[in-house]
Structures are given as structure tokens and as C-alpha cells.
């Protein structure tokens, strides 16, 4: 499949190693282009989320913003938030450490819950399933390494900052 025209946020090819970061950014840009469906405050938060996704170095902050926006907007923009959710599930991981001396356990992040702490708890529980004893547990979220593929030049103007970013 040509990744340049991938629109499927759940496609198996949507892996961190060869993902178009623009999949998620395009969804946000589409939301921002809606005239009636997005309030001023929501637009501000969407721009913050867009900035976090472009930076790709603050998974915790990204998750908090996404969860906040999801609670506010998901019922009105279910498909857009489904695409964003699937993109994040494919690109975020949680590193669980059951105690300071334990080996970290990397687990997938699932968005079955609407708040960060509930998601963190699910990640922790998945590690506890291995029968370990929990002493001062830690769950850290991080992005998987993202290599952005060569961009398609005919895409919308809003995608251009990412092209510049990947070229740099």
C-alpha cells in the first residue's frame, strides 16, 4: 500500500516505523476547518494537541490533551476521534515498572477509558497480570520512534509545516 495515500488509521501499515505523522495532524486540521462544530476553546486545545503531536516528545501531555478533548468533543465528532484514538494506540507505549529495581515492561496503550489515570491503571493492571509484587509502581507514557515517510506534495497547505519538519 502506498503510505502517501494512507487514510486508514487502523491499517496494519500504520506502524511507528513507517508512519505518516500527518494521519493524525490531518484529522485535527479537518476538525479545525469545520465552521460550526468546534468552539473557540476547543480550537485552542486542538491546536495545542497538534503542536504536541508535531513535537512528539511529550506523550503524557499529548494524552492529557487528547483525553480532555475527547470528553468535550467525541459525541459530535465520533469518527475524527476514532481516527485519532487509533493513531495514538498505534504510536504510544506505556513503560510499567512495578518496583524501582524491576525490569521495565513495555505495554500497548488502549483507550478504553476517558481519563489518563484510568488508562494508566489499565496499563499497570496488564503488567500485574504477570504475577509480580507491586512496590512504588511507575507508568510512563512515550511515543514510539516515528520515521515520517516522504510527503506527498499535493496535500493541503495545513500539512506543509510537517514536511518542513521532516526535511529538517
Amino acid at each position, binding site marked *: *500500500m502506498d503510505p502517501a*495515500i494512507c*487514510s*486508514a*488509521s*487502523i*491499517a*496494519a*501499515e*500504520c506502524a511507528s516505523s513507517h508512519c505518516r505523522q500527518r494521519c493524525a495532524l490531518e484529522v485535527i486540521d479537518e476538525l479545525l476547518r469545520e465552521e460550526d462544530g468546534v468552539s473557540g476553546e476547543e480550537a485552542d486545545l486542538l491546536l495545542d494537541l497538534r503542536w504536541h503531536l508535531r513535537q512528539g516528545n511529550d506523550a503524557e501531555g499529548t494524552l492529557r490533551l487528547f483525553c480532555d478533548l475527547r470528553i468535550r468533543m467525541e*459525541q*459530535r465528532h*465520533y*469518527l475524527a476521534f*476514532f*481516527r485519532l484514538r*487509533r493513531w495514538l494506540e498505534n504510536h504510544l507505549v506505556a513503560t510499567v515498572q512495578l518496583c524501582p529495581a524491576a525490569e521495565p515492561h513495555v505495554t500497548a496503550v488502549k483507550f478504553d477509558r476517558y481519563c489518563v489515570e484510568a488508562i494508566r491503571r489499565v496499563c499497570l493492571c496488564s503488567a500485574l497480570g504477570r504475577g509480580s509484587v507491586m512496590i512504588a509502581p511507575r507508568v510512563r507514557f512515550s511515543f514510539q520512534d516515528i520515521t515520517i515517510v516522504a510527503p506527498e506534495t499535493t496535500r493541503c497547505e495545513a500539512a506543509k509545516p510537517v514536511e518542513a519538519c521532516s526535511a529538517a
Partner: protein
Amino acid sequence: MSTTTSKPAAAKKDTRVIDGLNLVVADSYALMALTHLAHWNVEGPDFFPLHKAFQEQYENLFEAIDEVAERVRALDAYAIGGLSTFAKVAQMEEFKSPMPQKDYVAALIVAHEKVVDDATRTRDLAGESSDLQTQDLMIKRLQWHQKALWMLKSYLKP
């Protein structure tokens, strides 16, 4: 009386068109399996309309797969087949049931969009090689997928 006629114009065998058709076969088969899974596992207050709508969709896909694969044969090529081949070619992620009923609809929309992308490219390639029968078949499939997308997207509207 002559027992032969002038040779009719044979369908042009363009490997790009055949690859495109086989991709649409794989996409459609994968989408049919996903739609069938959604038909079985969907739960919630809208169970009955969704269960029925998904059935109508996978039945349409089943007939379409046969028609597209037979077009590959009509072009004197072979259709691809087998579950692992379809999965590898189509590259569609499977659902992880149970999911909220709206997630089944959203996931099917994403899958339909993939078929639309691939069928559009195949339609255009068929046009380039003057294979109007294949082009017509792809247009017919695109019309159906676009209608399915409209219905699924309408369900997600608040």
C-alpha cells in the same frame, strides 16, 4: 457460410489493472470478513438495525468479490485467493471485539475508505488502458461503497 467471424477486440491485458483488480478483491474480502464480524459481535441499543445493515453489506460484498475476480479471469489472468493472501494484500487490521457499537461503524468506515482508494486507482488505470468494462465495474463498486460510507457516517452524526 463462413464459420468464423472477424476477431473481436480482445480485452487489453494490463498488469497494473489486473493488480488493481486483485487488490480490490483482497480489500473486499477483508472488508466482508470485518463486516461479518461486526454483524456477529455488535451489541447495544441499536443491535437490530446494525445487525441487519451489516448483513446487507457483507452479502453485497460476497457477490461483488465474485464479479471482480471473474473480471480478472476475463482479462486472461488469475485471481488471488486464500485467507492469508487476502490479509497480506489488503492490510486491514482486524477488530478486537468487544467494542462499542459506534466503534464497529467507525472501523468499517475506515475499511470502506481503503477500498474506495484502491478502486479509484484501479478505475483510473483501467481508463488509461481503455479497458472500459473494468472501468465500468470499478465505477459500480465505487458507487456502492460511497453509498455505504454515507449510511455509516450518517449513523455517527449526533
